[in-house]
């Protein structure tokens, strides 16, 4: 690479080489139209992109090639080249109209590599008047990921960064919470860590898609349909698989493995049926509200509201109703619950139906919020478990709190961390919180002895 001296030194490495070469080649012009290789110079203002005409630019290359050109009215000029290779492009700063400034620091002169058969290889100069403070934007400098490296003045403020992330984190957290409640309750009532719960979510999403997409039903009906079908799926699963296994007295860990198997089987069944691609339900994706930096679609807002309403409803059912209390009793001690006259099987069946329904609607809403795939549920399963654990296993409210924390951390962390580490942030938070409260945020410890 040629040295990139910031000063307007007249001699660059390339032009130094060129000196002893024969003078006859000097200023020889090659017709850019017919040349197999050419460089396209374009001089513009950095601020408003306006073209700057009449600026002198010299292109020099090996073998003594050199060509002086002047930018046209559109700021452009094309330089025909004798062949592929490295060329030095230098802008004559004295020819720049007064007040238009100088090229961005470090860009003049510059080496441009031209590959064979490349025409119009761009060699642009952006003129800026902001001299001293141009500490940034040296070409090729590695920029910090996830954030802009351009001048601080134009960079977004922390507020602008934070608020949209809080919004999307909150929405995602709420969606996650809906999906979590089923896991939490099923774990609570049956002790089963259901690894196939993700597939209930996927199922809901797919059903939502089928209803809204191919069947062309309106969105709200599709979402309600997903809720109903999710409940049916939960019921069928319990009836066809889990109940017989419970009857057989299969222990929890083997049951968990059954759920892993079920998850695999269902997930790939979805793939066979719905294909491996991403499915998108018809939706109005333009922003319904623009609060400063926050852009939300109407489906995002409605989704969030539906989540909140459903979560409140679940809370009410669990805390206040007889069946809700029975659910918690079953989760504590099945034998004793039965001895208290609770029909344990019925409670578990209800939990499956409810959990399936909530997962179903969560899936449908996730389909609207993001997109749906055959493995959508599986890909958020870890987050579901993390949220449930964070809140305290088996406590439905814990799942809510955990979900929102996870949702927020995933999004907010991207302000400081590379985006591909966003799950890491959430998981680290999970670990840290569990270190401080090993029983989860809302979990309670029992006594020893």
């Amino acid at each position, binding site marked *: 690479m040629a040295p990139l001296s910031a000063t307007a030194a007249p001699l660059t490495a390339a032009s130094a080489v060129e000196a002893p070469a024969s003078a006859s080649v000097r200023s020889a012009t090659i017709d850019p139209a017919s040349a197999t290789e050419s460089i396209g110079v*374009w001089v*513009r203002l950095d601020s408003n*992109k306006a073209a700057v005409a009449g600026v002198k630019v010299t292109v020099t290359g090996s073998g003594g090639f050199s060509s002086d050109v002047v930018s046209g009215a559109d700021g452009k000029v094309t330089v025909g080249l004798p062949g*592929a290779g490295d060329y030095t492009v230098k802008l004559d700063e004295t020819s720049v109209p007064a007040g238009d400034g100088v090229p*961005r620091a470090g860009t003049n002169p510059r080496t*441009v590599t031209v*590959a*064979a*058969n*490349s025409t119009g*290889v*761009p*060699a*642009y*100069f*952006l003129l800026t008047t902001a001299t001293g403070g141009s500490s940034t*934007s040296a*070409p*090729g400098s590695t*920029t*910090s*990921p*996830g*954030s*802009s*490296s*351009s001048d601080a003045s*134009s*960079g977004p403020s922390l507020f602008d*960064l934070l608020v*949209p*992330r809080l919004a*999307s984190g909150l929405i*995602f957290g709420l969606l996650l919470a809906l999906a979590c409640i089923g896991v939490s309750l099923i774990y609570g009532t049956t002790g089963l860590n259901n690894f196939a719960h993700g597939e209930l979510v996927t199922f809901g999403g797919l059903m939502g898609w089928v209803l809204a997409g191919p069947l062309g039903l309106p969105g709200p009906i599709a979402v309600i349909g997903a809720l109903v079908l999710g409940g049916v799926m939960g019921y069928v699963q319990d009836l066809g698989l889990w109940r017989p296994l419970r009857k057989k007295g299969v222990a929890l860990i083997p049951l968990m493995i059954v759920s892993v198997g079920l998850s695999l089987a269902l997930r*790939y069944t979805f793939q066979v049926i719905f*294909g*491996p*691609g*991403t499915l*998108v339900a*018809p*939706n*109005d*994706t*333009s*922003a319904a509200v623009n609060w400063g930096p926050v*852009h*939300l*679609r109407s489906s995002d807002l409605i989704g969030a509201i539906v989540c909140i309403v459903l979560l409140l409803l679940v809370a009410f059912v669990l805390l206040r109703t007889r069946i809700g209390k029975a659910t918690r009793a079953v989760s504590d001690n099945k034998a004793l619950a039965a001895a208290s006259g609770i029909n344990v099987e019925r409670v578990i069946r209800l939990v499956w139906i409810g959990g399936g329904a909530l997962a179903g609607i969560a899936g449908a809403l996730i389909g609207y*919020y*993001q*997109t749906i795939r055959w493995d959508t549920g599986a*890909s958020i399963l870890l987050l579901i478990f993390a949220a449930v654990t964070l809140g305290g296993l088996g406590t439905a409210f814990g799942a809510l709190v955990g979900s929102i924390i996870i949702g927020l951390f*995933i*999004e907010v962390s*991207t302000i400081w961390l*590379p*985006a*591909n580490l*966003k799950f890491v942030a959430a998981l680290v938070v999970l670990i840290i919180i569990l270190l401080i409260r090993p029983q989860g945020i809302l979990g309670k410890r029992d006594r020893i002895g």
Partner: protein
Amino acid sequence: GSTTSSSSSAGTGLTLNIGTILPQTGSLATLGPPAIEAVNLAAADINAANVGITVNVTQKDSGDTSTNIATQSVTSLLASNVSAIIGAESSSVSLTVIDQIAKAGVVEISPANTSPTFSTYNSNNFYWRTAPSDVLQGRVLGQKVLKDGATNVSILWQNDSYGQGLHDNVTKAITDGGGTIVADTSFDPKATSFSAEVGATLAPKPDAVVVISFDQIKQIVPEFKTAGFDFTKFYGSDGNYGVIDPTYTNVDIAGAQFTNPGVKASDDFVSKLAAQTSKDGAKALSVYSYAPESYDAVVLLALAALQGKATDGTTLKNNLQKVSEGGTKATSFADAAKLIAAGTDVDYDGLSGPISFAANGDPQQAYISIYKYGTGNTNAYESQEFGDLSK
């Protein structure tokens, strides 16, 4: 996999067993079918030509990198004594199995790997590919962005071998040309939400955005739309070209442009593929990415076998370069086979372009096509750039 043996061909000829590891599952599964069908088609064409070589194909799944399927598929292919393996599509998957294949003395020829990593990878010359390194696509894409007038560019790219390589080369082209990367955001290939990433990408108000992904683009463009982005400033690449199609109605990305290595698939080829597809009982194809390259890969292997008069991996690797460059040009298998039979040095130029292998197994020249979307998410071939990597 399905074995397309068939056709009791010219009595005493050679039998070439090839396997494929192409994505039937995983994040590239949308781009698997065109390649899979093209391989079947090529085998059928070769066998139909009846020139003393029969090709047997065993198709296996490559999955994606999150499963270990590729390794297993390769193990099984190697054990069934294939002498060449076509695949994988994803560069990362190829990297998983490249050593395993090379150590077995079997040729691996990928129709779609574009990561520059392979150009310098020491595989004892058992690794080849018919798709050009992203040094080329990156350059074309980066320069295209600049030529369209954008100088402050954001890149949103998927963090894998392919994304990394393309990202590096796009970045180089843009900064070399005097532009600036204003936001450089990578995402996990398995990410499910992109709002933060898109937010970061758009925060510095770029003139253009380059998105390097696989089918995640379906989830990415709505975020752009919600943020009120103008899609004429949107650029994509081979990994996500064709993913958005007229059935995708939520976002109209009219004006978005995509690069894709290779030439536009010819109508003739497209209709032959369609016939093959229906014969195989598979779903009709909607994209043709890397179908020509896959077809050519099979043809080149068959030619190399004819040239070397043997079908073992070493013979194949020793003759691949020879049949691809220097000599009399031929554009179909039948023609090239005739030339070889006549003892003429052949230079096969296939459906995907003027394939001529360098010693490292890379094609030296290639076309990069540019496609542009119109309203209704139809896309049209715009132009193509010819690139030469030999210098």
